């Protein structure tokens, strides 16, 4: 019985969190704000970062003792869904999942954690590297004698931040380092994405960096932070596809052809129903995965498998829903004037980031096989 009461209380907390985040984003202008910022050059709003920090957004999944709200990933997922609904351009999921995820696990006493939770500083995390055919399997960016040399790729939120967390190879395995945005020998190249944002390609040549953490803990923390971020990106996609579906549903109820709303045609009704079912399954899956990840504790393998399951489902749903939504808008769906295209473009970027559905199905099945063999 106690269990049920706690669950009910948790559900109520999440509902309140969802409501306050939605109000905050709506008051700021909803997805119109995303369009304006995109047209202004693809930056995000520092004011929004401050406002979000004031609402406790960045520390939501950080344990109480490290200065967070200690509400877990399920709560972070609620926020990520709201981010997705208004396609907010701020790097919120990357900050919660990667930057703060690494800092609170590896150096909870460093002043940077408090500043990141408080929104006083925004950092981007650089951990992947580009190989000849995609993501490089190993790490060749080196940290030695207080200096970084090498390159990093696909850095979310890389343009406009005050500094970078960089995972590199030290003398004894992985290290987490910090590099200031203006540091010597640092070059940041922003590659423009479909939604107007930029993914950073960073290169370092004897760039001064501060060592934050080293040893096996870094690999473990990175794996966990990547799992978290992957699952949160899935939640962001779920919010996005949910809103995209609302938009297209509204459109087919009002757009008239042959003297009736196009939503009165059975073929449109059935397609809309399929999208709705797809969305409901995706939402249930991602929420379940996040709350199970909260329960999985230190089982990194299980958390990674759940994250892959979430991202695979959310990716399939968001791609299908945004693309079908454009089709059901007809010609105006292909114009930039209608909002639906913003959602399609954002879905493209979020699906590809941290791996698309095919990639995550592969990881999921590999993990399932492995766990089956261990049992």
């Amino acid at each position, binding site marked *: 019985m106690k269990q049920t009461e706690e669950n009910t209380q948790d559900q109520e907390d999440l509902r309140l969190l969802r409501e306050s985040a939605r109000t905050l984003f709506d008051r700021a202008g909803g997805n119109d704000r995303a369009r304006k910022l995109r047209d202004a050059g693809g930056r995000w709003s520092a004011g929004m970062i401050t406002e979000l920090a004031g609402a406790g957004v960045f520390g939501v999944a950080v344990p109480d003792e490290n200065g967070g709200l200690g509400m877990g990933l399920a709560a972070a997922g609620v926020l990520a869904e709201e981010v997705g609904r208004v396609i907010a351009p701020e790097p919120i999921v990357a900050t919660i999942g990667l930057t703060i995820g690494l800092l609170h696990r590896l150096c909870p006493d460093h002043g940077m954690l408090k500043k990141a939770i408080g929104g006083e500083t925004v950092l981007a995390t650089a951990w992947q590297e580009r190989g000849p055919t995609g993501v490089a399997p190993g790490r060749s960016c080196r940290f030695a004698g207080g200096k970084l040399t090498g390159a990093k790729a696909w850095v979310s939120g890389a343009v406009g931040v005050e500094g970078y967390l960089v995972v590199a190879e030290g003398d004894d395995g992985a290290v987490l380092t910090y590099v200031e945005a203006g540091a010597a020998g640092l070059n940041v190249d922003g590659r423009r994405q479909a939604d107007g944002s930029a993914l950073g390609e960073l290169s370092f040549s004897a760039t001064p960096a501060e060592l934050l953490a080293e040893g096996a803990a870094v690999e473990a923390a990175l794996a966990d932070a990547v799992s978290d971020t992957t699952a949160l990106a899935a939640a962001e996609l779920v919010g996005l596809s949910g809103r995209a579906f609302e938009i297209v549903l509204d459109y*087919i109820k009002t757009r008239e052809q042959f003297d009736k*709303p196009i939503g009165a045609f*059975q073929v449109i*009704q*059935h397609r809309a*129903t399929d999208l709705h079912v797809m969305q*409901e*399954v995706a939402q249930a899956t991602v929420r379940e995965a996040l709350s199970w990840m909260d329960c999985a504790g230190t089982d990194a393998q299980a958390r990674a498998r759940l994250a892959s399951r979430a991202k695979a489902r959310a990716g399939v749903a968001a791609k299908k829903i945004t693309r079908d939504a454009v089709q059901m808008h007809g010609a105006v769906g292909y114009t930039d004037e209608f909002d639906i295209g913003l959602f399609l473009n954002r879905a493209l970027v979020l699906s590809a980031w941290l791996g698309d559905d095919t990639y995550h*199905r592969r990881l999921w099945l590999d993990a399932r096989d492995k766990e089956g063999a261990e049992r």
Partner: protein
Amino acid sequence: MTDWNAMTDEDFRREVHQFFESEYPEELRHLPHRPTFAEVEHWHRKLHAKGWVAPAWPAEYGGMGLSAAKLLIFYEEQQRWGVNRGRDMGVQMVGPLIIKFGTQTQKDYWLPRILSCEDIWCQGYSEPGAGSDLANLRTRAEIDGDDFVINGQKIWTTMAHDATHIFMLVRTDPDAPKKQQGISFILAPMDQPGVEVRTIRTLAGETEFCEVFFDGARTPRENLVGELNKGWTMAKALLSFERIFIGSPSLAQNALGQLESFARGRGAFNDPVFRDRFAQAALDVEDHAALYARYADQLKRGETLGADVSMLKIWVTECFQRITELMIEAAGPDGGTIGPLQVGNVSVDVLASFYKARPTTIYGGSNEIQRNILSKAVLGLPG
């Protein structure tokens, strides 16, 4: 009398599972066809002795009196262990209607006979011109003295050739302003000159479906259940629970388990294309379960399910079909072979699974009808 609802879900699940595991005959597990009563009679006797024939009925009528949440667990365990539902039309369909709308005399007479399977029931709803559009039914029942006289034809009557009685929707007022009005719910004996049963051979080569012809067949007027001309509303009132049950993940989960052992035996998991398609199917099943859990929780909180629960049926039946299609692919050149295929120590009847999956998107309201319902009742689309 045990109060099952007072048990924790876990304890109840364990108890149900243990009974099936220790008592259910191995040779009847995952039966690929619908059995005649004779085939499952010894199992029915055990169930009857245990008092478990009618899990959903109130205890005062000889049922288990399970809450919706416990009922779901019961059925989940039943399907998981591959326990055949037996000839349960009486328990599932007639009994609840009599309990809800019948007279005391009807309850006293019919309910014990349903539990003991002294009467075996079949369902006379569909007609050649009344499938998805069920309210279009034409079979007439006219009052003649103390009897109804029945003329017309029913179809897709499952196992009618092995039934003693039929419960049916019949038209009793052909002049009613709407076709949903003027329909009544009556009970009739099968063993009489005016009733003729012909079996229909299915794609799977089985003969579980029948056509039933009525030519002046008779049934006493006291076999009307509920009010005259109110049959449509009564029949619909029963469907609420049916809608989540029909969307339960078990069938697809069982099929996925079969696909996995079969495909492993066949080495299909070395093929990256097959791996992705398997992962898609497996995630379709797992993710459906997440949505299903949401509705099961609603039932546990005592809430009534809305029309949106039909999503479960659409998703899981189509997913079930894709899984059985993958089995056929994994079978390669054996994909058209009738009967069990042996792979290592596993034996899988690929075609039986395939055939079993086909009607799931048709029965219980075809998936197209479900989409119509969802688009209007849930999405609020016009027309």
